[in-house]
């Protein structure tokens, strides 16, 4: 099987879908002539021309509006937001319009739109350029939310997202773009709503997604060396959640850790913890530990950024807490403690 980079897999998914369906087009800032700020759309202009690969002004709200409006009349836009942080300027079109038009019209409309964007930290981009917004989108009925952790899923999930008849928020991560993996050349898809058990284990279930899958797998390896068998679940879809797979796993392991790069409060981790104690309350032998970024705006300085984000060591620590081994608590500084540090 050919090996390719995450961003090439995304690129291939768009190419294949654009070849398949003339209604699919790509739009965003710097997606065409510049070949994409992160080169995800590289070469699309050359293959499909400027009508289907569209550079825009820096006008996020209308970029999303073009997507929603053109989807109202049957096109299938793939909208790139240069980073998810800028999508905040487009939320009215995405949330107040894209997510609600089908329902408000009594089912007359559907909005087959994908909004793709990298999110997250790791490049020292500072507070305004390092956010994770999955929980905001997960909160909203009418949207679907997807997050690919590797090239294979990136291609398969993006193809499913493009074929889906609903607005899908497709989350990528800048730190993943150049990571490599096997990607079949054939026309496969990865269904939305199905998690991937990346590693089986009997002792603890770790539930994670997107950029955190890497450190989680590394932690699982390290723990295996200590005889601790971790089951790792890559959610892949955040809305809908594959609650069955997660539930079945914790019913087996009786212990869970959720790992997210996002801030903790009202995040995806919180939702998973809530869901699990609705579906598997009686099965837990220990509390679910939540490994998230520290509850602060992302700092620029490299060492501060590093220490703000979950890493292998923090994940190992959380697993050990869950199984009652020696560990450092709290897992993270609480919001309330951070607030006490005021002058």
């Amino acid at each position: 099987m050919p090996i390719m980079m995450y961003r090439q897999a995304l690129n291939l998914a768009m190419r294949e879908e654009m070849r398949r369906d003339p209604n699919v087009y790509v739009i965003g800032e710097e997606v065409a002539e510049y070949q994409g700020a992160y080169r995800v759309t590289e070469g699309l202009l050359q293959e499909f021309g400027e009508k289907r690969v569209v550079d825009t002004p820096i006008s996020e709200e209308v970029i999303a509006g073009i997507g929603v409006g053109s989807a109202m009349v049957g096109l299938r836009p793939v909208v790139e937001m240069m980073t998810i942080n800028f999508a905040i300027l487009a939320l009215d079109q995405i949330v107040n319009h894209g997510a609600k038009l089908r329902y408000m019209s009594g089912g007359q409309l559907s909005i087959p739109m994908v909004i793709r964007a990298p999110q997250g930290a790791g490049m020292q981009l500072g507070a305004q350029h390092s956010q994770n917004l999955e929980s905001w989108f997960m909160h909203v009925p009418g949207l679907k939310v997807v997050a690919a952790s590797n090239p294979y899923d990136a291609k398969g999930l993006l193809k499913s997202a493009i074929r889906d008849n609903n607005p899908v928020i497709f989350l990528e991560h800048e730190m993943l773009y150049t990571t490599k993996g096997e990607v079949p050349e054939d026309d496969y898809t990865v269904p939305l709503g199905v998690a991937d058990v990346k590693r089986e284990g009997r002792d603890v279930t770790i539930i994670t997604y997107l950029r955190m899958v890497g450190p989680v797998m590394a932690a699982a390896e390290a723990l295996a060396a200590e005889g601790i068998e971790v089951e790792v679940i890559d959610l892949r879809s955040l809305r809908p959640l594959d609650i069955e797979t997660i539930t079945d796993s914790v019913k087996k392991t009786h212990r869970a850790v959720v790992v997210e790069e996002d801030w903790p409060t009202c995040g995806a981790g919180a939702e998973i913890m809530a869901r699990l104690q609705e579906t598997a309350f009686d099965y837990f032998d220990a509390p679910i530990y939540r490994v998230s970024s520290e509850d602060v705006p992302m700092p620029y300085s490299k060492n501060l950024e590093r220490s703000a984000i979950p890493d292998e060591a923090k994940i190992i620590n959380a697993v050990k807490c869950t199984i009652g081994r020696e560990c450092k608590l709290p897992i993270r500084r609480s919001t309330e403690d951070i607030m006490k540090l005021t002058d």
Partner: protein
Amino acid sequence: MNKAELIGMYRQMVLIRKFEDQAGESYKLGKIGGFLHLYVGQEAVGVGFISALRPDDYVIGAYREHGQAIARGVSPRRVMAELYGKKTGVSSGKGGSMHMFDVERHFMGGHGIVGGGMPLAAGMGFAINYRDGDQVVVCFFGDGAVNEGAFHESLNIASLWGLPVIYVCENNLYGMGTAINRASAVPEVFRRAQCYDIDVESVDGMDLLAVRETADRAIRIARKEHRPRFVEATTYRFRGHSMADPGQYRTKEEIADYEKRDPIVKMRAYLIENGFFTDADVEAIDKEVDAEVADAVKFADESPEPSREDLFADVYA
């Protein structure tokens, strides 16, 4: 335009007026909930533009859109049923006053976020060009929407890309309780559109025939040349912003002055003076329309409410 067309447009204005007056009554009776924004006084703008469109063109409005839906040929029954929150409503009772949709008739809503329809209109215009179509989009919005970022981003991109969208600002002088000169640095709305190199036109929105003439011109050019047009139609709402409006911000004199310029009265006078119809015809139309509105109310009243299952339907496609 021939006699039939002229009378047809007049009749539409009367229908909208009587429909809206009835909606106001039904609201007071508690048959209608939420916000209710009536189109009374502005009928000539919606009728003038929409009557000039082809069936395959698109119309998108804001939350003061009942009249525009009716002008587009949506049955008053289904508009009233929507206001009554019934399953037979145009939006199955899920949209309400602010969210009327009739996609078959290319009536694309019904949007409650001020300025929110303008990017959507650009998106529909983009799709028309994408498919090498020759339809146009007519997008209605108010003078208050002009100060939203969406206005700016939409007009720039529509001009830059040559989108066949006619942006129609219904300038009724107030955004809720705020007079336009307290909200806009430049109260002449059409000037706000000129810095995008979009051809603009200002028209008396109380004069149906003037509006129609402007509409024909704007639509012809947008259709042929694939570029946007901007029209400022100066008009006035005879009622409050919504049924909740205490209405302290306008003088009785001002309202009275504008009522003298009632677009229906003006058009009626024109039709009679030019011998297109007689007082008898006027009465006949009034009767007909009264019956049509009464029928709409009856239909809405007797229609079933949506069921608990409907609550969960159509969230996803």
